[in-house]
């Protein structure tokens, strides 16, 4: 099992090559771009395809064995988010808002990364547990919700401290402040759960489960056979966006750059090992690791911009999309595959 060889064979797939191509196109300032309507549609399509596939698999294999992996995934995601926060706040000296925003960005999951992972496995002729798509859907909001909850707690505490020091008659104002914070939390919760990614993913899982292999026949060409081709097109745009962000990496700083590479590696490897210990298959363990390694860059800004508006969005978007995403799909994915192969065959 030669990791370098695996990285190389992973590099030379259409998905990675078109991603790199997109980066180059952006760097040479080409006017190439995938029209917005297409690049907005593709994630919806990819999630529908993932969901249908996951649902059909779950019907075939049952989802009895799903509960434990899901709870473990949620627990790890929460744990990792707290861990990220400590590292960012203590070591990185980021302010409280940026720390929580970044912590949850890396605690959350990336649906695009997941798609690439599935294609990678397909290419290696390896399958994975269908219920992982459901875990993807459930993990999406978990880290955000916790980070937002903790941020609000911190802000309320600050306000309450101010209140005690002043003890003026502006009490009602502060009450309203806390009230507002609470409303916001429930709003953000609603927004996260009804966000398009989760909705289309869960919906497709349910539909896949209902229709099964047979009902899937008439739409298989669109939702299965075209999957990799569609990712390739999406990767061009992802590459372009990542390429445009490369300049911003300097602004992100050395600490966050290191964080954006080391943290996913740590989370991902633990994920692979834990999944193996829980009895997931070789491919399933890779995907489980990838879930934990991946950072969110499509859902993150949409949620965090409202929930923690004080945080600087270019920090979390740039590091997740410009550093972690390329690193994950090019380097870490084959590494996790190698590790999973060793622990599954050893």
């Amino acid at each position, binding site marked *: 099992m030669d990791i370098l060889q695996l990285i190389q064979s992973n590099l030379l797939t259409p998905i990675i090559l078109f991603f790199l191509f997109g980066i180059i196109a952006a760097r040479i300032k080409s006017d190439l771009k995938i029209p917005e309507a297409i690049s907005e549609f593709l994630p919806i399509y990819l999630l529908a395809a993932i969901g249908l596939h996951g649902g059909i698999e779950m019907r075939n294999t049952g989802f009895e064995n799903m509960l434990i992996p899901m709870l473990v995934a949620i627990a790890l995601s929460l744990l990792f988010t707290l861990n990220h926060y400590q590292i960012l706040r203590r070591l990185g000296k980021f302010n409280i808002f940026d720390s929580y925003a970044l912590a949850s960005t890396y605690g959350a999951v990336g649906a695009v990364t997941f798609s690439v992972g599935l294609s990678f496995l397909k290419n290696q002729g390896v399958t994975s547990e269908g219920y992982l798509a459901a875990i993807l859907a459930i993990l999406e909001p978990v880290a955000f919700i916790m980070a937002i909850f903790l941020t609000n707690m911190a802000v309320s505490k600050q306000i309450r401290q101010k209140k005690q020091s002043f003890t003026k008659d502006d009490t009602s104002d502060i009450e309203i402040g806390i009230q507002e914070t609470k409303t916001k939390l429930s709003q953000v919760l609603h927004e996260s759960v009804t966000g398009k990614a989760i909705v289309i993913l869960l919906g497709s899982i349910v539909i896949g489960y209902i229709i099964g292999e047979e009902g899937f026949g008439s739409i298989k060409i669109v939702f299965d056979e075209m999957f990799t081709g569609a990712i390739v097109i999406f990767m061009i745009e992802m590459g372009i*966006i990542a390429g*445009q962000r490369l300049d911003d990496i300097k602004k992100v700083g050395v600490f966050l750059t290191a964080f954006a590479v080391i943290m996913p590696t740590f989370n991902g490897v633990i994920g692979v090992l834990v999944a193996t210990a829980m009895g997931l298959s070789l491919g399933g363990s890779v995907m489980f690791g990838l879930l934990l390694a991946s950072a969110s*860059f*499509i859902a993150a*800004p*949409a949620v965090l*911009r*409202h929930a923690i*508006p004080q945080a600087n969005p270019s920090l979390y*978007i740039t590091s997740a999309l410009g550093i972690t995403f390329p690193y994950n799909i090019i380097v870490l994915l084959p590494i996790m595959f190698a590790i999973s192969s060793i622990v599954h065959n050893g």
Partner: protein
Amino acid sequence: MKLYTIKLLTITCEILAQKNIIEILKKHEITGYTTYEVDGNGARGLRGHGLKTEKNVKVEVIMREEKLQDVVEEISRTLFANFAVVLYVSDVGVVRTEKF
């Protein structure tokens, strides 16, 4: 056909702040507005490229002068610090003032 002078408030902001703006309008009982997506450049850099969340939007509101002050004040207070926002006010003439 007489034209009555009224105010047009135009807000250009990052698309994720649109919701906040609409809420502020609603709070002041303003339900008429027009929106459209735009690109732009400003203190927070080039916008409109890349992810959908990095687009801008323009919100235009025809409104009576009475409410203008409060709306502008609330937008300034709650959004200027954390969001990319530019706003300006102009005078326009309308036919049916009762609509606004």
